[in-house]
């Protein structure tokens, strides 16, 4: 007790903090590229983040094996029954193959798009803000990645776009981020709109397809794909319609999409490093 609070040293440290905070904020607002400091720090942290994320995944697998074994066995039995039923459906599906051919062409990836080149990367860290939904992966410019490249899951689902890269890391702004806007179309009907990221009233991440025409025929289960632009290749899956309703004005229609994956469960993503533009 009896020490002085505002010593000269504390005042200097506070002044330095204010100056650094202004520099960081202005740098983020003005510069479109990553600062040297951020590149260095993130380059150093990425291997550590990857190691901890890998440890976390392994711990989760062990936990799942130890405590969810019975549930896994039950789920396995259910899936076996479903598989047997599906095999019967497949035999009938030949009749519908031609009708579905256009949808398969839209949704196929590697086999239907031989011009696509992929690079795989593991997720090292997840965003910490409740408004920004971003992930950082463990590959970067040294592996041929660059800002603007599109990331997808193994099933061809759009995850997001690379916004910044370092030598061994890349930051991806996911489709759930509030700044994400993607030109899209309903695969079955061709109705166009824009898919926006955000949260619903319950605070859960959600995709919405907005700017649909009021007369647009949108059904539950319809798949929504990218229409192709300078940012996204054409025909990539964004999500499946789970409901359509009128917006706050009561005039415009929008659809809520289920994109089939959770950001916090993502383990590996695939970056489309090259593709031939239509």
């Amino acid at each position, binding site marked *: *007790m009896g020490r002085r609070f505002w010593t000269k040293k*504390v005042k200097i440290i506070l002044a330095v903090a204010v100056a*650094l905070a202004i520099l960081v904020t202005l740098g983020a607002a003005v510069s479109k590229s990553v*600062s040297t400091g951020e590149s260095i*720090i993130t380059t150093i942290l990425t291997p550590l983040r990857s190691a901890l*994320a890998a440890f976390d995944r392994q711990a989760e697998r062990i936990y799942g094996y130890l405590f969810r074994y019975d549930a896994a066995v039950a789920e396995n039995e259910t899936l076996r029954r479903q598989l047997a039923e599906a095999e019967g459906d497949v035999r009938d599906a030949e009749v519908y193959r031609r009708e579905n051919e256009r949808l398969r062409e839209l949704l196929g990836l590697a086999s239907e798009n031989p011009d696509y080149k992929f690079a795989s990367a593991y997720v090292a860290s997840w965003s*910490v803000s409740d408004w920004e939904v971003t992930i950082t992966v463990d590959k970067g410019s040294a592996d041929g990645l660059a800002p603007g490249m599109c990331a997808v899951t193994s099933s061809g689902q759009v995850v997001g776009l690379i916004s910044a890269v370092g030598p061994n890391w890349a930051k991806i702004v996911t489709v759930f981020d509030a700044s994400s806007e993607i030109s899209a179309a309903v695969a079955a009907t061709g109705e166009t709109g824009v898919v926006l990221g955000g949260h619903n009233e319950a605070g859960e991440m959600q995709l919405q397809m907005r700017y649909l025409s009021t007369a647009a025929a949108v059904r539950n289960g319809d798949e929504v794909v990218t229409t192709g632009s300078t940012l996204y290749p054409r025909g990539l899956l964004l999500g499946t319609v789970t409901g359509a309703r009128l917006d706050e004005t009561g005039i415009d229609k929008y659809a809520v999409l289920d994109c089939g994956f959770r950001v*916090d469960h993502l383990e590996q993503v695939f970056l489309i490093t090259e593709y031939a533009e239509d």
Partner: protein
Amino acid sequence: MTSAKKRTLLMWGVYALLALLALLVQDTLLSRLPVAQVRLCLIPVTVACVAMQVGGESGALFALIVGAVWALSGVPDGGFRLLGLTVGGILSGGLCDTALNRRLSAALLLSAMTLVITETPPLVVRLLLYGGGGRDVALLARRLLLSLPLAVPMWLVCTRIRKAGERRWTD
């Protein structure tokens, strides 16, 4: 180098590792596993607990360095968080030097204060620029409240580290 200096250096090395671990845990585990739809915040709690152990000046410097690394690691609103963390470190260390004792109750109080100082300005700016309402405020309040219990283990660890360093205070 005297043994006291070696212990002091070792103490600071362990505090640095603790801050690094907090940063990594926050970026990986706490970001991936939300609690009640919010992501917990460990770094302000860590800085407050360390600063209250080491005092105003050293706590301020520690908070500045941790804040700079955190901002440069790509955290959103890095500038605000850097400044908030430094102010939180100054106040945590300074109040423990002059008015409070280094107990768990003070750790909880100072951790809450640092959490509020670090996390509230980004929300205020966002509300001013983009609008928003009670939901955002409620989410922040929930996040701060649920992050506070992290101060208990952190304070215990920091106290052990300080005692191991055997730094003498004139109270």
